[in-house]
Structure formats: structure tokens, C-alpha cells
């Protein structure tokens, strides 16, 4: 009967040496006390960051032109959200991992129609504002091609948009109700009413900020704030924190891929990198069963430092 061969990277030798006294409860208690004290010291010395949330109100007051331009993009379908695809709409196929369009396959489960949800419905919820109701009636009773014509005309003229006397000024001649809608939406935003209209879609109570966040994320303003704090994708932003606080250093490998070709210019970067990270995670999980990888500790001999006392006693 032959004995199975000993595989040094898989099997462990039988330990026939000595044992020492060990107080596991005491060790655990000491660890908790030390960690708690260290936490206390760090919290007292460094505190934690709390940059105030941006509201549609604060955004539109800080940069009304950026707000109006973003609103226009929601209307003409060129905003990030309008052209996103799944799970919000069918506007795009979405990212591809080889032949797989995972987002599209799962489908639209969080339906967002930027024209209705970000522009028309919020305006319709407003009380009587001079000029707004006729404009909305004009819009809703028009055909899609008429609406598109107005929007295209306004988009062209809006390249020279200005902000004057608290009004959005665009020299549009054939844009129907669009100038009134964009201007009134901007006033609604500046008053804070749009924040409310966007989140109370499903009744009195809500804890779902999908719509206002998507609207905010479509703006230049939001991205500029993030850029100042080094939080954007091309700034290794995923591992950074606002201010000078340490962030999430453990995400370094995830954000690393976004910085290098081909990912840094790929439209499919997110899904490609997810695939990559799933693979690397699987490799980490399966180290014990991967020859070569599991031999690294034995070959690099770092263990000789860890167990040096054991080796000197047993030589």
C-alpha cells in the first residue's frame, strides 16, 4: 500500500512539537481595548469629512446657465441619462463585454423618460404661473415631430444662451413653448420646488433619490466640484475622499484599470473592468487550488522570518 505523495503547497506537515499557554479570551479583550483606543485617538485628532450635499436649488443658483443647458439636454435627448440605456431606458445598447450586453438583457427596470420626468411633469405640478399653463398645453397637444422641431431650433439658438435679470435668455424664433418651459424650470429649480417635485414621485414619503441624482449627474457643475476634490474616474477617484482624509485605499486595483489603455478610452470600460476584477477575485479565492500561484509562499521564503524561532529550535 503506497502512501500518497506529500505536496508541500497543499498538505501541511504533522506538528509534533511543543505547545505554549494561550489565553484566547484575554487576547481578544486586549485587542478590542487597543483598537477602541486607537479609533478614539484617530477620531479626536482627525474627525471625519462632511461636505454638504448639492441640491438642484444650490446648483441652479450657483450656475443657472449650466442648469438650463442640462435641462435642454434632458429635453433634446443628449444628456447622459437620456442616452443611457438600461436600466433607465432603451436609448442605447449599453456596454458590451465581448458579445454580452448584460445591462440590456436584464432590461429597463427603473424607467426614466427625461422629457416627462425631468421637465414636463415637474412643470405640470406647479401652481398657476403666468405663461406656463398655455406653454404646457401647447407642448402636450403638439405632435412629436413638431416638438422635435421646436427643440432643435432652441438647441441651435441656445449656444448663445445668457442669464440676464434672473431669466434665461435665448434668441429663439421658432421654438414654440420651449423657451418658457426651460426658463420656468430654471426658476422652479432656483426656488427649491424642483428638488421636491423630483423626489416625491411616489407619494408623501420617499427615500429614493434616483431622479434628482441622475439630473445632477448630467450637469457640468457636479463634475467640476468632484474634479476639484480629485474624485473623478481619471483621477483614481474611486479610492479618494474629500479633503485630505484617507479614502478607500483597498479599491486601488479596481480604479487602477481606468487609468490605463485600453480601458481609459473604452466606452465599455466599466463592464470590462468588472469582468477583470471578477476574474482576479476568483483567482484570489482559488489560490489554494492553483499550482504555481500557491507555490509562491514556499518559493519566496518569507515564512522563514515568521517561523524563525521554530526552525532554530528544530534544527
Amino acid at each position, binding site marked *: 500500500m503506497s502512501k500518497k505523495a506529500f505536496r508541500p503547497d497543499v498538505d501541511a506537515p504533522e506538528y509534533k*512539537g*511543543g*505547545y*505554549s*499557554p494561550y489565553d484566547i479570551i484575554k487576547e481578544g479583550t486586549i485587542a478590542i481595548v487597543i483598537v477602541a483606543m486607537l479609533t478614539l485617538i484617530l*477620531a*479626536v*485628532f*482627525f*474627525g*471625519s*469629512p*462632511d461636505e454638504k450635499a448639492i441640491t438642484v436649488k444650490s446648483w441652479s443658483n450657483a450656475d443657472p446657465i449650466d442648469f438650463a443647458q442640462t435641462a435642454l439636454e434632458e429635453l433634446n435627448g443628449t444628456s447622459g441619462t437620456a442616452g443611457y440605456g438600461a436600466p433607465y431606458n432603451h436609448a442605447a445598447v449599453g456596454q458590451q463585454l465581448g458579445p454580452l450586453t448584460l445591462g440590456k438583457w436584464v432590461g429597463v427596470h427603473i424607467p426614466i423618460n427625461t422629457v416627462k420626468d425631468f421637465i414636463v411633469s415637474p412643470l405640470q405640478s406647479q401652481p398657476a404661473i403666468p405663461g406656463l399653463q398655455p406653454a404646457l398645453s401647447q407642448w402636450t397637444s403638439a405632435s412629436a415631430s413638431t416638438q422635435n422641431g421646436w427643440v432643435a431650433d432652441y438647441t441651435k439658438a441656445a449656444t448663445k444662451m445668457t442669464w440676464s435679470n434672473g431669466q434665461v435668455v435665448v434668441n429663439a424664433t421658432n421654438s414654440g413653448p420651449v423657451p418658457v418651459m426651460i426658463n420656468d424650470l430654471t426658476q422652479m429649480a432656483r426656488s427649491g420646488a424642483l428638488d421636491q417635485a423630483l423626489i416625491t414621485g411616489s407619494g408623501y414619503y420617499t427615500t429614493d433619490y434616483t431622479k434628482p441624482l441622475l439630473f445632477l449627474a448630467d450637469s457640468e457643475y457636479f463634475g467640476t466640484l468632484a474634479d*476639484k*476634490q*480629485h474624485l473623478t474616474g481619471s*483621477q*483614481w477617484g474611486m*479610492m*479618494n*475622499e*474629500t*479633503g*485630505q*482624509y*484617507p*479614502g478607500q*485605499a483597498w479599491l*486601488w486595483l479596481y480604479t487602477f484599470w481606468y*487609468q*490605463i489603455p485600453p480601458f481609459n478610452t473604452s466606452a465599455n470600460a466599466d463592464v470590462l473592468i468588472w469582468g477583470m476584477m471578477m476574474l482576479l477575485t476568483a483567482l484570489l479565492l482559488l489560490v489554494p487550488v492553483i499550482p504555481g500561484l500557491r507555490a509562491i509562499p514556499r518559493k519566496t521564503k*518569507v515564512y522563514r*522570518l*515568521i517561523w524563525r*524561532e521554530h526552525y532554530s*529550535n528544530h534544527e
Partner: protein
Amino acid sequence: MSLLGSIINLDGYGHYLHWHFILVSVGNLVVVSLMVVTFVAALLLPFPGKSRRKENR
């Protein structure tokens, strides 16, 4: 004292080190360096109780 109340104020825009495509915050660099130093120190520093373990062999 502000609502934050910390002794060292880490708010404001952070300091970043930029080398080719590597961009790292001072905060994160400190943490990662500490991790490496801690790991190496844990390997090298003598562990107390050596004579006790010799006795019990």
C-alpha cells in the same frame, strides 16, 4: 470649535502626488505606507515569551 471639532483639520482641497499616470493622495499614501511598514515590522520584530516557549518544549 466648529461642528467638526477635530484637532487636525483635514478639510479643504487635498494634497496629491502625481507621477506619470499615478495620482495618489497624501492621506492614502500615508495609510498604504503604514501598512507596508507594519507588515515588515510584524515579520521582523521579536515576539515576547521566547524563554517560556523553550521551557515548555
